[in-house]
């Protein structure tokens, strides 16, 4: 295949691939969302929980960080799907598997940044008459979320790359659209390189968005002290 042929093929397949990229973005957004909603409470349990709660959170952590993403995906899609009365769509299976997995990783990020905010802030808030939940919600958590943004950017790029696994259970995202085109045209290299390029753009665009968010929410003088105490 000549260079112009390849270029033609890329231009013709781009709309299809971009539709796939849209599904990929939807997957990332929901997986990160599930991870956030579950990861924050998990982190609070890791830091402030009672012994039993901590123990349960630790087991959750072990399983979801110790199993490969692909095995988790199979466990949810084929395993849960084979139980009578349960039917999961491929999309939902991916969101559950990768979302719950991301929650385990995100809880570690939030745990680290909660600890980085420092003991003194909790003591100060309590001495102003706040209850413990109030102090966590109003004082510690907002600061911790800001400190966790660099870690979240990292997590975004990991989840983005893991969503490529979704093709293995039949979600028609970016990679599987690429596979369809390859099955018709046999232009393996051209198509997979284009797919890789789209992933590359998505990765660095997302990281840029998190970087801007981090800059926007920065409070002068705040980060420096937390970094010192976390050392």
């Amino acid at each position, binding site marked *: 295949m000549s260079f112009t042929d390849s270029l033609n093929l890329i231009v013709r397949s781009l709309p299809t691939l971009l539709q796939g990229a849209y599904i990929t973005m939807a997957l990332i957004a929901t997986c990160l969302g599930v991870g956030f909603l579950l990861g924050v409470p998990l982190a609070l349990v890791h830091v402030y929980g009672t012994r039993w709660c901590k123990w349960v959170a630790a087991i959750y952590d*072990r*399983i979801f960080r*110790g*199993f*490969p*993403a*692909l*095995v*988790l995906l*199979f*466990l949810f899609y*084929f*395993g*849960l*799907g*084979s*139980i009578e009365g349960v039917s999961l769509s491929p999309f939902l299976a991916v969101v559950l598997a990768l979302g719950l997995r991301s929650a385990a990783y995100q809880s570690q990020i939030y745990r680290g940044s909660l600890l980085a905010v420092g003991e003194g802030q909790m003591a100060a808030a309590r001495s102003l008459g706040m209850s413990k939940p109030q102090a966590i919600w109003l004082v510690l958590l907002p600061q911790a979320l800001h400190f966790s943004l660099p870690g979240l950017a990292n997590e975004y*790029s990991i989840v*983005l*790359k*893991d*969503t*490529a*696994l979704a*093709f*293995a259970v039949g979600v028609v995202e970016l*990679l599987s659209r690429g596979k369809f085109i*390859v099955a018709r045209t046999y232009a*393996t*290299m051209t198509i*997979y*390189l284009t*797919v*890789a390029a789209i*992933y*590359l753009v998505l*990765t*660095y665009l997302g990281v840029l968005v998190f970087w801007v968010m981090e800059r926007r929410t920065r409070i002068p003088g705040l980060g420096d002290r937390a970094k010192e105490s976390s050392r």
Partner: protein
Amino acid sequence: MSFLAGALPRLFQGMSITLQLIVCSVPIGLAIGITVALGRSYGGLLLSSLAWVYQALFRGTPLLVQLFIIYYGLPRFGLVLSPFVSAIVAFSLCSGAYHSEYFRGAILSIKSGQLEAARALGMGRLQAVLSIILPQMLRKALPACSNEIVYLIKYSSLAYLVTLVDLTGQGRLIAYETFRFFEVFLVVGLLYLGLVTIANRLLRSLENRAHVPGL
């Protein structure tokens, strides 16, 4: 339970493939990582920008896509690799990119005065890097690299998607024969968890051994 007794030998067979994949790609990945990190830190403009491009490409795209390019794409250019070799090439290149970033971070954390001191003692540039910077870099990067190695153990399951019958692949076959999807994948996951736990223990003890008080 009897089904498990039948399945376990086959799962261990798959696990041996998984172990072979890991044992081959971890050292190659580390070697690539060290070379690229040194190239990016001490190479000239050309070498360091090449290293940067390599890092950006392999850290910015999914491992699965890299695997597909190597397994399905390279035959276009007459380079036909077996699933096993493709997996090792993809795993080494990808983890090498991550390792190199950790090694580079370690190099940056070593004060530049050390290199100057070594040069002042009459060492050549290469000698100073190899005998002063390299040992410290390896020590400092060890925790991050251990993490990456543990990641690689888990991501080795992608080899199944290029038709290699590793631990995940055997699990999939057994699950289709017995229709006990949940049990089989749970056992497969626990076996990976076991591998990861053992690797963690070994790497921690290596870290303790390499620890130099006060460094």
